[in-house]
């Protein structure tokens, strides 16, 4: 609301005679103060839980009861116990999450770049239908087929244990399959913006299709490759349902599953360690997002993967 008032004030000042200048100035000042207040409040709202978690992580008390904004006798004990808990192998869980998310991102980028190149550059029979199919398939998010995926892995696992339930191989297949369609579509849109003259001139110079793709196309589309890799990584890292259903043993858990089962309503006895784990688990993602804000937001608004 204050925005509007302020903006009107500016407009009015230009349109009306100068007698009103002083009142316009005060109302502009009031508007400005209100806005600053709103921003500060919103920032506090956004950061309060983060600050509380930070303080809990440093607080040696490890309980929710003793939660305070500034911890007494701050130590890194909670972080240390993350690495010394045989029942709850936090480093392993985080590594599992990073491994799965990283491999998924890598495979998705590679496979969807190949597909997007073909869809963007070749004209062939079935192209339109194929594109439409990809979009339609994407309407069915793979968390909806979780029952079928569970049974599929169960059956495959009887023959190939490394791709069955409770394996990262099986989960990786699910993640990559689920992320491919939409990202191919997203990438194809970006490929379309690269002028065709570039690859045509490469072709005239005798480059094969693959050489054109590798040496001409890929360097030009690096921004979208990065965006898709990061968004896929973040989405996979944050998956809870699929990992929860498919993984059964402690050493296979991802961070999401391990953390949920660790806290399991025992907030009061495990608050400090949980807070330390939350910080360690969230930090990489937060840093990536904040440093690449501008590049990522384009992908975010197209994807609307969250929120």
């Amino acid at each position, binding site marked *: 609301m204050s925005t509007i008032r302020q903006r*009107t004030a500016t407009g009015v000042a230009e349109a009306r005679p100068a007698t009103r200048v002083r009142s316009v100035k005060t109302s502009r000042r009031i508007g400005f103060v209100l806005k600053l207040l709103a921003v500060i409040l919103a920032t506090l709202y956004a950061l309060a839980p983060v600050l509380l978690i930070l303080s809990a992580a440093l607080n040696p008390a490890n309980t929710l009861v003793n939660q305070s904004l500034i911890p007494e006798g701050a130590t890194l004990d909670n972080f240390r116990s993350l690495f010394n808990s045989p029942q709850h192998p936090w480093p392993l869980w985080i590594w599992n999450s990073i491994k799965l998310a990283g491999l998924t991102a890598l495979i998705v980028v590679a496979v969807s770049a190949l597909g997007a190149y*073909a869809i963007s550059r070749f004209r062939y029979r079935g192209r339109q239908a194929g594109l439409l199919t990809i979009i339609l398939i994407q309407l069915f998010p793979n968390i909806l087929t979780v029952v079928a995926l569970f049974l599929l892995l169960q059956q495959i696992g009887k023959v190939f244990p490394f791709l069955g339930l409770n394996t990262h191989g099986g989960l990786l297949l699910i993640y990559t399959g689920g992320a491919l369609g939409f990202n191919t579509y997203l990438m194809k849109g970006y490929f379309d913006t690269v002028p065709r003259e570039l690859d045509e001139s*490469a072709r005239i110079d005798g480059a094969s299709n693959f050489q054109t793709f590798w040496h001409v196309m890929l360097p030009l589309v690096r921004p979208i490759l990065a965006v898709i890799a990061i968004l896929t990584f973040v989405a996979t890292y944050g998956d809870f349902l699929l990992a929860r259903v498919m993984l059964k043993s402690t050493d296979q858990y991802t961070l999401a599953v391990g*953390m949920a089962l660790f806290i399991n309503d025992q907030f009061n006895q495990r608050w400090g360690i949980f807070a330390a784990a939350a910080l360690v688990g969230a930090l990489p993602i937060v840093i990536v997002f904040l440093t690449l804000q501008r590049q990522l937001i384009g992908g975010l608004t197209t994807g609307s993967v969250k929120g």
Partner: protein
Amino acid sequence: MLRKPSDPRLSNPKGVSEEGGALERPTTSITDLLVRLGGLAFIDAVALWFAYRLFSNGAAVIGGLVLFITLLVNVIFLFNGLYPWRWLAPGLVLLILMVVYPVVYMVYIAFTNYGDGHLLTKEQVVAQLGTQYFSGEGGATYKWTAFRSDDGRFLIHLEDEQGNTFVASKENGIRPATPELLGGAPVGGELPEQINGYQQLKRLQVLRYLGDLNKLGITGEQGPLRFNSLDSASIQQRRFTYDPATDQLRNNETGKVYTPKDGFFTAPDGERVTPGFAAVVGWRNFARIFTSPEIRQPFLGVFVWTVLFALLSVLTTFSLGLAMAMVLNDKQLPVRGLWRSLIIIPYTIPAFISALIWVGLFNTVHGPINKALESLFGISPDWFSDANLAKIMILAINLWLGFPYMMVICLGALQSIPSDMYEAADLDGAGPIQKFRSLTLPLLLVAVAPLLVGSFAFNFNNFTLIELVTEGNPPDPNGASVAGQTDILISYTYRLAFASGRGTDFGLAAAISLIIFMIVAAITIFNFRLTRRLEEVT
């Protein structure tokens, strides 16, 4: 991985011609053909081995799928006319196996009774029933003596009530005794201490090996031999006989005949043989959702809350996000970039982490929120036991999670509204509210409406939030359903299929998933329409 030319836009055409100018038409060269055939041969060999293993392990459908995909890959790589598809092949394989097949399989499951009590196929059930035996009147009873070799094998001497003697072993089944088999001792006479290297076991030793003996599975022509006690063993009879021609199951002990019905072998008097098997039951799962009172009631409740939750989530996050965007859009504000980066932080934290953090903060007894409320207003709401409070808490958490995203997209959209429009409105003497309602909001909505619909669809399936915050609790007050009072459709599905503690019902879970799919698909198609129509507008 990516090579880095100094300046891609300028250097590429020439750079490429120097590095690889020899190949003119890659699809027709001999080496290319050889590489392709070699690669295909390798892929085919691996795939055929996979398919063979799958078939021989009873996963025929997936085996067939692997064969189909292999065939597809071969066709794509053998015909030059299908060249563009070669680029799509890796993605296609993954999509067919991990997306298309599960969708089809899911639709199939929705029409079956697959779930606890019906987990096996009919063939598996018949095979399993084939291992059930009973000690019937027809089965002979024996006195027995066991012999054991040093390497742990057993030889059994049997004598039936008529005085006929037999020698039984795991390897050779049950054979009439001959002096040869008895190591030279006469048939019917005193048993020797050892037979062909097997030592006779004393009663105490036999006691120790009784369990092992039954596990051996010595089987004669009529059925397996069972050691009932130290003195008697008997031949067991198969309880069931299955006749594939009539598709009927006969109980050999009672003579009852069972026919398959609704996933059970069922007798005319309604008696069922367990376990049941997975069978197609038509529209029954869907009919249950709409007619069976113990499912319809919770389903309706869950459905209404799902829609309400998604709608209110979009509304609250968008309102706050828009308000903050309008504030941050003021160029006079100092360090706008910093504020923006700070406010965006909740969005960057993985949702499973922030959801759990908030559960701690909302903790009824020790949580900082309730402590603050206690000291300020003297109240301590029980966020997790009261359904309405739990819903408010979920929406509040989701507001925190979601408003930064809305702020970011609104900021982008606000900046794309040309400022001369506001100047024109000022000239026309429009007030602030009027300008917001008839200028800012409509122009903004054109840009962000598809994203709002997308956000609705996302929250419609926001499993992570619900499961981590309340697990769907508080539970159904009547205790009749697995659906908790804050469950949304997707978490209800999850509970039905995996986590209810009341057994699994894959069929019903798949049916509900299909319904969610219809709703989400409708929303998305509407979204596509909206995008196109709005593009025409602007």
